[in-house]
């Protein structure tokens, strides 16, 4: 094990140890010691992660590839499935390193914030016993999340995936004495389970068609099967899963969509997005950490990891779902008035952007957006926590206003977040923050795929490689932003021009040589354009563009209504205050938003992209070998970026301006607008979240409960009744045989004989009166009869005797 792996594993295990410690001794540590203990634990992890990140950043791509390959060999033999061994190990690549750092860094600061925040909140129920419990859960969460990030195996990814879901459940329902909190927790878990059902299905398909659950190996097998038209791609098999065609999808697509379902649950994509707004019932630090920065990003992370297993159709599904989510939720965000709900919907919308980005192939950009978003959204959530705490649990922005005087640090760090999410920057030049780079890259990729697709001929020539190129291993791994460049290329977001094609060093060459045959086959298939892909529909570009205008609008609305203008509720305003312990993390994250993301993350992500997306694969399946770079967003054509600026470059200004114009004087104008005919019903529908929750409640929850009631009644009245009827029948038969047959029949015969005897006895007894004269009479009579009989003759006698039957 290299020390990189050791550090990553240690960084993952430390929170677990912290968790175990808190389970047993948490109540002794009490308040606030258990909180600080957790900060220490997380800080340790963060230090380890930082070491790894900076050291990794300094390595050459060749060294990184070597370490990645070495990590594969250090795997733990976990179990066999049937006869396929399942091994677990650390997936050591740039993406892991960055995600790991991001999670630990943000978590550490959020833990610090929590120490302050929970001091006031945990007493709501029963004092100290809940305070340490909160931190126990947080440790568990940190462990699970980090485990998810470093897993090299889909099964383990799934296990940690569920564990973060569990932590999320426990933390959303932290104030579980409140009905809405436990409802929200349950909703989150069950909705995620629906997604996991798809994930599980995808997992099974991966296992059985690709014969492994290891991410890299699965991708390799996927590629190999594609090249040789076997397995998932076998002709005839691909359309025949259950003996009928599954809505026109090939088997490979179905697998990708199945896995994506998991991401839809965790990253709250339509139609499984309903849980995230409700999840705001949890304590605010939880919303910041889990429901904005890390866990909900796990879905995006998953899609990035399985990117190599997605066919163009599956990518299309991803893009469409992402597009629907980002559009719908941004619109809903406009009308929300709960500060956390607005942030929740904006999170949904940004997650939609990430998923959409992956769908259109902007791998690097989507993950870059994930990183930047994690920083600024965590910061904004903490800011909202500060506001809520400062305003004594007031969450309605309609009652706030003017808070910038009372909480300046919160106000201005929040403003940085607003700028970042809006994608603020100076068009055509470098400087900008947050979404300025990442969102634009996603949109550029979208433009590429919807408009400039298939690209021009000059790219054809370059990317359809000749055999010589294959052998030299040059043509597949194109690195646009190697770290050296990245360090200087801070303004490259807008015009990351194609850099020179670079060979990745000896290990890459070996790799290329080993797959030479595969690749030749792939290219052969790719160029025969058997699977031509047309450009994506235009709306997949225009909706995200439109929402790029909406985002600044609702964020500015939120910020302005909260911090600017006149106080709308004097009572709230008078009591508002800011806590120092809680604003230090805000500042730290604001600094992170400004600096950390671009200079370190972007180049490393670009490096990760070349390996993690397996450019060759994407290309081959698209049928356009030339677009390796475009498909993964490594290099976007210069023109695309230039074309994009007039369309979206000033969106932030327009959005801010409109919001300012409407809300500058409070809510009156907005109320007037929203009650205008034609807008009023839309406003109502958006406020009611487009009635999706109601429909789910009615159809799914009530349906399920009704059906379960039905089953239960069926069980009691039909299934059990059959058993009881059998029993009753047996008893009837028993009664019949007991009473009719036995008592009247068999017994009747016996009894009949007995009663006959008795009757005869009675009859015989009658004459025995005990009186002598009767006996004398009887004797005399008898004697007379006997005499008569004797007299009648022996013949008659014998006749009488014969008649009696003696």
């Amino acid at each position, binding site marked *: 094990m290299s020390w990189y792996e050791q550090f990553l594993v240690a960084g993952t295990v430390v929170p677990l140890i912290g968790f175990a410690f808190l389970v047993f001794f948490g109540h002794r540590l009490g308040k606030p010691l258990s909180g600080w203990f957790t900060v220490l634990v997380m800080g340790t992890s963060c230090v380890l992660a930082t070491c790894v990140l900076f050291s990794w950043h300094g390595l050459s791509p060749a060294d990184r590839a070597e370490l990645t390959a070495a990590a594969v060999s250090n795997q733990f033999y976990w179990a066999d499935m049937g006869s396929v061994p399942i091994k677990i190990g650390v997936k050591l690549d740039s993406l892991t390193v960055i995600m790991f750092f991001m999670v630990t860094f943000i978590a550490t600061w959020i833990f610090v914030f929590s120490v302050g925040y929970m001091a006031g909140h945990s007493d709501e129920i029963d004092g100290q016993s809940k305070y340490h419990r909160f931190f126990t859960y947080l440790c568990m969460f940190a462990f699970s999340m980090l485990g998810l990030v470093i897993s090299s195996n889909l099964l383990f990814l799934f296990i940690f995936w569920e564990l973060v879901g569990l932590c999320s459940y426990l933390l959303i329902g932290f104030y579980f004495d409140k009905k809405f909190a436990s409802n929200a927790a349950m909703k989150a878990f069950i909705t995620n389970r629906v997604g996991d*059902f798809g994930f599980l299905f995808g997992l099974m398909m991966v296992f059985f068609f690709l014969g492994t659950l290891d991410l890299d190996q699965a991708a390799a097998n996927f590629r190999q099967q594609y090249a040789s038209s076997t397995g998932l791609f076998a002709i005839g098999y691909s359309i025949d899963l259950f003996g009928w065609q599954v809505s026109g999808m090939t088997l490979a697509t179905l697998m990708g969509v199945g896995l994506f379902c998991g991401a839809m649950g965790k990253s709250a994509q339509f139609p499984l997005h309903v849980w995230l707004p409700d999840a705001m019932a949890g304590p605010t630090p939880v919303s910041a950490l889990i429901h904005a920065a890390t866990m909900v990003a796990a879905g995006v992370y998953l899609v990035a990891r399985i990117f190599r297993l997605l066919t163009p159709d599956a990518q299309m599904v991803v893009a469409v779902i992402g597009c629907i989510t980002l559009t719908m939720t941004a619109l809903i965000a406009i009308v929300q008035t709960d500060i956390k709900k607005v942030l929740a919907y904006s999170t949904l919308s940004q997650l939609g952007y990430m998923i959409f980005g992956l769908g259109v192939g902007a791998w690097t950009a989507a993950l870059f957006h994930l990183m930047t978003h994690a920083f600024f959204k965590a910061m904004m959530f903490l800011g909202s926590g500060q506001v809520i705490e400062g305003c004594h649990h007031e969450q309605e922005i309609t009652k706030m206003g003017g808070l910038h005087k009372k909480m300046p640090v919160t106000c201005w760090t929040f403003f940085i977040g607003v700028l970042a999410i809006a994608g603020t920057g100076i068009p055509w030049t470098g400087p900008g923050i947050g979404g300025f780079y990442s969102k634009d890259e996603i949109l550029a990729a979208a433009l590429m795929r919807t408009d400039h697709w298939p690209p021009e001929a000059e790219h054809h020539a370059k990317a359809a490689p000749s055999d010589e190129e294959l052998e030299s291993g040059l043509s597949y791994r194109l690195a646009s932003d190697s770290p050296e460049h990245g360090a200087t290329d801070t303004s490259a977001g807008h015009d990351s021009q194609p850099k020179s094609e670079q060979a990745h060093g000896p290990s890459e060459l070996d790799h290329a040589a080993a797959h030479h045959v595969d690749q030749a086959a792939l290219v052969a298939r790719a160029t025969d354009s058997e699977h031509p892909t047309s450009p994506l529909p235009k709306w997949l570009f225009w909706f995200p563009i439109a929402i790029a205008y909406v985002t600044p609008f609702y964020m500015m609305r939120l910020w302005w209504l909260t911090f600017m203008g006149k106080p709308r509720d004097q009572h709230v305003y008078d009591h508002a205050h800011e806590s120092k312990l809680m604003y230090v993390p805000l500042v730290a994250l604001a600094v992170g938003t400004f600096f950390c993301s671009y200079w370190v993350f972007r180049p490393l992500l670009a490096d990760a992209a070349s390996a993690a997306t397996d450019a060759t694969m994407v290309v081959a399946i698209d049928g356009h070998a030339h677009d390796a770079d475009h498909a993964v967003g490594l290099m976007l054509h210069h023109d695309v970026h230039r074309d994009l600026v007039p369309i979206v470059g000033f969106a932030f200004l327009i959005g801010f301006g409109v919001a300012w114009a409407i809300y500058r004087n409070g809510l009156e104008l907005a109320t007037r607008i929203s009650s205008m005919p034609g807008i009023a019903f839309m406003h109502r529908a958006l406020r009611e979240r487009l009635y999706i929750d109601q429909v789910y409640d009615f159809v799914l929850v009530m349906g399920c409960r009704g059906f379960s009631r039905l089953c*239960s009644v069926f069980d009691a009245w039909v299934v059990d009744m059959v058993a009881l009827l059998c029993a009753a029948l047996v008893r009837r038969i028993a009664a019949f045989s007991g009473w009719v047959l036995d008592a009247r029949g068999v017994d009747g015969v016996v009894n009949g004989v007995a009663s006959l005897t008795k009757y005869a006895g009675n009859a015989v007894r009658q004459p025995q009166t005990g009186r002598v004269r009767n006996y004398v009479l009887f004797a005399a009579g008898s004697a007379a009869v006997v005499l008569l009989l004797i007299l009648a003759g022996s013949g008659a006698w014998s006749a009488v005797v014969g008649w009696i039957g003696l």
Partner: protein
Amino acid sequence: MESSLLSWIVFLPSIGAVAIMLLPKALTRVIAVGTTLTTLVVSLLLFRTFLAGGDPAQAESVFGSGYGFLHYVQRIPWITGEGFTIEYFLGVDGLSFPLLILTTLVMFLSCVASWNFSHWKVNKGRKAYFVLFLLLETGMLGVFVALDFFLFYIFWEIMLLPMYFLIGVWGGVRREYAAIKFFLFTLAGSVLMLVALLGMYFYSADAVHQAMASGGVEGIASGYRPDVMITGGTFDLIELATNQAIQDHFGAASTMLMGFRFAPFAFILLFIGFAIKLPAVPFHTWLPDAHVEAPTPISMILAGVLLKMGGYGFLRICYPIFPGGGHDWAFVIAVIGVISILYGALCAMAQTDFKKLVAYSSVSHMGFVLLGISVMNKTGFQGAMFQMIAHGISSPMCFFLVGVIYDRAHHRRINDFGGLWLSMPKYGSWATLGFFASLGLPGLCGFIGEIYVLLGCFEGRSQFGWAVPMAVLAATGVVLTAGYVLWLIQRVYLGKLREEYAGFPDAGIREVFILAPFGVLAIVLGILPKHTLFNFMNGTLDLMVDHIVSMNRHFDLMNQSYAMLGG
């Protein structure tokens, strides 16, 4: 390799029972707990043998090279008559070993759970209770180690009677109804089993005699024991499965019982017998009643061990001896399995009685066992077996969790609880663990069994076209399970604390002592399934599947040639 270790394990509880009868009443509980503990410790000695199972180099010495490799065998002719021998034949392999350990463990813990006997509603007859309790243990252990069908049958019936009294005397309000229902259902099953038993004996005798006559020999070679000749019918479960002559005769189209082909028919008879025990829908209705009425420790045993006897019966008797039957009925079995999963989950969701809910969840979980077995491949069998053990850990835990609050609240109406986590934080945490294990949360034991079963179905897709849709249907059960478990947790443990429960004492030392082993095992099995369970059983299961598959292939060939001959 004769050894009397298994006899000791099986009859130690009986010795304890005798001791309880003879010694004063004050010692009863101590003796009972001591006996179950001793049994547990002695049964752990078996690890000496099975610990090496995970090492590929030694696996063969643990599991052998074919189905029927046994350890600690003890075989003594027991009843001999004209041409037949009933043997006292005990042995243990990778299939029975985990179940044996599970039994001794669950019995020990539920014996500790009976410690507060004097506080029960019906607390008369302490001696009788513990005597029956220990006899029950003998019966159950005997079922898992008896390899002579006749002996198996006897242990099966021995187990029945103590259970009847334990429910019928110390149970709840409708205890007599529940006890009789339990008794009659199981008895109905064992009658069917008896028919199959006799059929198997007589047809094996026919087979052996025919083989002897056609070969002109004094006896035929045993299927699994070198240098042993068999000369007549047999009750030996391993022999019946491995002897080619017997298998051929069982599987032949001309072998009929009551007008039906013998193998599928006998399979069905046995199947129903075991499915009642499992329990599979629609034979499950005894279970909710029995659970609701039984006292807590008995519920733990019912769920933890008794239900496993059904699954064990499938794996030990139905499938190895009638592999063709398994193949013929695979679809039906899978459908029953899936219906059990979904129907059990739905019924559980609708329950308002805490215990009934857990009982229906057992139906749902055991459906996975059926589904896993039905596809007849290694992954499926491993999954089914793991599911049994996992359920044997999570469900007694859940029943005990119910028992803990029943002891305090004296009712089990889910909707009347609320906020118990607040008044009983420690207990609440254990409860969350237990119910999440039952829910099948990855990282806990329930998950491994389910995913193996589902993967097994996927693996079976080349053989059975329906396998994948079944897996998909079963997987929807995952969502339903989450639904009812979380709803349950919400109604009982979350929410506002009700006044009437505010003063409840938290889980005591004894209660934690019972919950902790279950909880720890649930976690350990979930994290390291191979090292804690698969290592000890996969060898046998794999060999068994190989055996079944090769037998089926053999029958296919036989039927083909039969058809070619114009039959």
